[in-house]
């Protein structure tokens, strides 16, 4: 009797825990999507700082800070795509496609490519040479950011 009472107690605790964590997961997912969108917007701002230098809107220091930050945020990308977070903010423009998780290795490979190109952008910004920077910017944008968006980002119908 004690054993089965303990089994019941454990079962109940697990069930409560599961229900609790499902609720937590749902709240978590919303949180993750928000973090994800914030990360991407930050990356956009960092890229803007680099382009700003090319367009003579800001100085090289700001561009350098932007490029350095990009390298850091690239590392965080897998963290904002945990299992079970396909989709996006229903009022937003975009959603993460489920292929991200079914093709996780490819997702990581594209992320690695983007991370390398962010490093290359840092190196180009160090030279201060605008032609180098434009080339590295375009390469990162098209073949890094664009490659992932092309395969794994859905535009939500409005």
């Amino acid at each position, binding site marked *: 009797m004690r054993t089965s009472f303990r089994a019941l107690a454990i079962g109940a605790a697990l069930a409560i825990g599961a229900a609790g964590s499902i609720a937590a997961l749902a709240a978590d997912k919303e949180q993750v999507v928000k973090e994800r969108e914030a990360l*991407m917007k930050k*990356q*956009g*701002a960092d*890229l*803007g700082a680099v*382009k700003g230098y090319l*367009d003579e809107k800001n100085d090289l220091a700001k561009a350098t800070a932007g490029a350095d930050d990009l390298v850091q945020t690239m590392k965080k990308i897998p963290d904002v795509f945990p299992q079970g977070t396909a989709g996006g903010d229903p009022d937003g423009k*975009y959603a993460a496609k489920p292929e991200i998780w079914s093709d996780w290795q490819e997702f990581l490979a594209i992320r690695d490519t983007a991370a390398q190109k962010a490093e290359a952008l840092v190196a180009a910004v160090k030279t201060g040479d605008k032609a180098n920077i434009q080339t590295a*910017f*375009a*390469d990162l*944008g*098209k073949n890094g*950011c*664009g*490659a*992932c*968006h*092309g*395969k*794994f*980002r859905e*535009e939500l*119908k*409005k």
Partner: protein
Amino acid sequence: MVALSSGAIAAEPDPVTRGEYLVNAADCVGCHTDVDHHGKPYAGGRPLATPFGTFYSPNITPELETGIGRWSEAQFLHALRDGVRADGANLFPVFPYPSYTGITDTDAVAIKAYLFAQPTVRQPNRAHDVPFPLSWRWLQTPWKWLFFTPGPFRPAPDRDAVWNRGAYLVTAVAHCGECHTPRNWFGAMEMSRFLAGNPHGPDGKPVPNITPDPNSGIGNWSEEDIIGVLTDGHTPEFDFVGGAMAEVVKSTSRLTDADRRAIAVYLRAVPAKPSATKR
């Protein structure tokens, strides 16, 4: 025609080299290659889902039996610009001949020269997955009477060379309207709403309004903003385009600076048409 040609490219004596530039601008390889199944370039087989069914692109390598290797220059031009196959059958307008109809003789011949210099691939064409009677090619004949105006592109005499070059690229070679223009019940572009976006675009995806409407189009974009997205895919908010447009950027990034500027100049002068979706 000097007004239509981007200086350096027009001066290129070798038609294959001229053709290479044009084939990139028209992005033939994009539709005519089955990338998802590691298909060979220009060998066809890529599915394109439309409201009328799924079409599979044909083999346009110069292979003699399964490609277009036996086609004469006249037959090639007739297909490219009038939507008629070498055997006389109509092509479906999923092939954007309603836009390519504007391509000049010189450019069309250069396109053929480049394609015919590509490696041959033996790959029979896959039949389209289109329900009867939409699969009847002869029905395209009345469709053409109703909806098709054959070319060639005529430069506007009251516009400058840059605008005209942009008009030629957008309306003919780069065929932007084929994705960005809404379509009627018969699948024809609604030219009164040219470039105003298509909520039911290729593969069922929404395609944005690129007229200068400030609320639903790109009215707030500068000329440099448009050049930016064509150069490397970045929007004024430093988002990077995805989906089908990412593929388009692969080819627009290889245009000359002058051609991208011409496209931007033309787009900013297109009539602004509001559409349902907000940017």
